[in-house]
C-alpha cells in the first residue's frame, strides 16, 4: 500500500513538473513533448480512478494525435517561441508604418 502511495506521489510530481516545463520552456518542440508526458501520466491516473474508457481516449488523442499535430505545426512554422513573437511584432510594426 505504501509503495502504491509513493507511486502516486511520484506520478503527481512528474505531472506537475512536466506541465510547468511545458509553460516555461522556450523551445516549442520540447514543450510539446512535455505536454505529451502530462497526457501519459493523466491517462495512468484516469485508469487508477476506474475510468478505463477515458484513459484509452487520453492515451490515443493526448499522447499520439495532439502531439503529432503540434509537431507538424512546429515544422511548418518555427521552433523558437521568442523568434516567432519578435517576428510577429515586427510584422505588425511594418504594417502600421505602411
Amino acid at each position: 500500500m505504501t509503495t502504491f502511495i509513493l507511486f502516486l506521489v511520484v506520478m503527481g510530481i512528474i505531472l506537475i513538473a512536466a506541465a510547468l516545463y511545458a509553460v516555461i520552456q522556450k523551445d516549442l518542440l520540447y514543450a510539446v513533448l512535455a505536454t505529451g508526458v502530462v497526457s501519459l501520466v493523466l491517462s495512468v491516473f484516469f485508469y487508477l480512478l476506474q475510468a478505463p474508457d477515458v484513459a484509452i481516449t487520453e492515451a490515443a488523442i493526448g499522447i499520439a494525435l495532439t502531439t503529432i499535430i503540434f509537431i507538424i505545426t512546429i515544422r511548418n512554422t518555427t521552433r523558437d517561441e521568442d523568434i516567432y513573437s519578435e517576428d510577429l511584432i515586427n510584422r505588425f510594426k511594418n504594417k502600421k508604418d505602411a
Partner: protein
Amino acid sequence: MLKKIFVWFLLAVLGIALYASFGRAPFGENRVGPTDNPATVSAFYLKNSAEKLQTANSVTAIVVNFRGFDTLGEVTVLFLAATGLASILYRKEDEDEEGEHLPVRINLPASSIVRTGAKILFPLILLLGIYIFVHGHLTPGGGFQGGSVIATGFLLMFITYRRFGTNHKVMVWLESLSGLAFVLTGLYGLIKYGSFLQNTPDVGHLNDLVSGGLIPLIYIFIGIKVSTELTNVLDTLMNIKPKKR
C-alpha cells in the same frame, strides 16, 4: 507588472473557488449518495441499463441510448471540425509544382527497426480499435475510443512510411455513409417506435455480443466514422508542404 499581478490574483480567486466547491469532497469516494435510492438519476440509469436494455456497460447505455441525441451532436461537431480543416488545408496533387507525387513528410527515411515494428504493430492496433468499438456495450470504451485508437495506427504508418497513403475517396465515402447510417438508425426508431433514436424492445440477454438492441450497431457506425475522420485529418496535415523561407 500590473498585468502579472492581476493574472495571479485571478488565478488565486479561481483556486479558492475551486477549493471551496470541491475541496471538501472525499477523493475517489461516492459523492452521489446511495445508488439504490430510486429518486436519483444515477439509480434510474444503472437500473434501466441492466434490466431494460440488457447492456453491461452502463456508460455506453447512457451515451448511445438515453443521451443518443447528444452523441449525434458530438459526431456532428467532429465532422464539422474535420471538414473545416480539410477545406482550409487540402490541396489537389495536380497543383504540386514538383514532378514527383510523393508527399513530402519526413526528410530522412525511418530505420529498418521502426519499419518492421510498424508493420507488425499496425494490424494489431487496428484489431484493438475494432475490438474496442465492437465490444462497446460490454467492456469500457466504444466508438470514440476505438476510432481514435485506429487513427493512431494509421498515424504510425504515416510517420514510418513516406509512400503510405490512404485512398481518399474510400475514406470519405466510409465516413459519410457511416454518419448517414447513424441518422437512418435514428429515423428507424422515429418511424417504428415514435421517438428519434428509440431503441428496439428486442434487446437480447445481458453480456451477449448481440445485446442492447441498436446500441452496438450505432457504436460500430460511430467507430468507423471517428476513425476515418481522424485519419483524414492526419492525412491532410501530413501532406502540407513546409513553406520555403
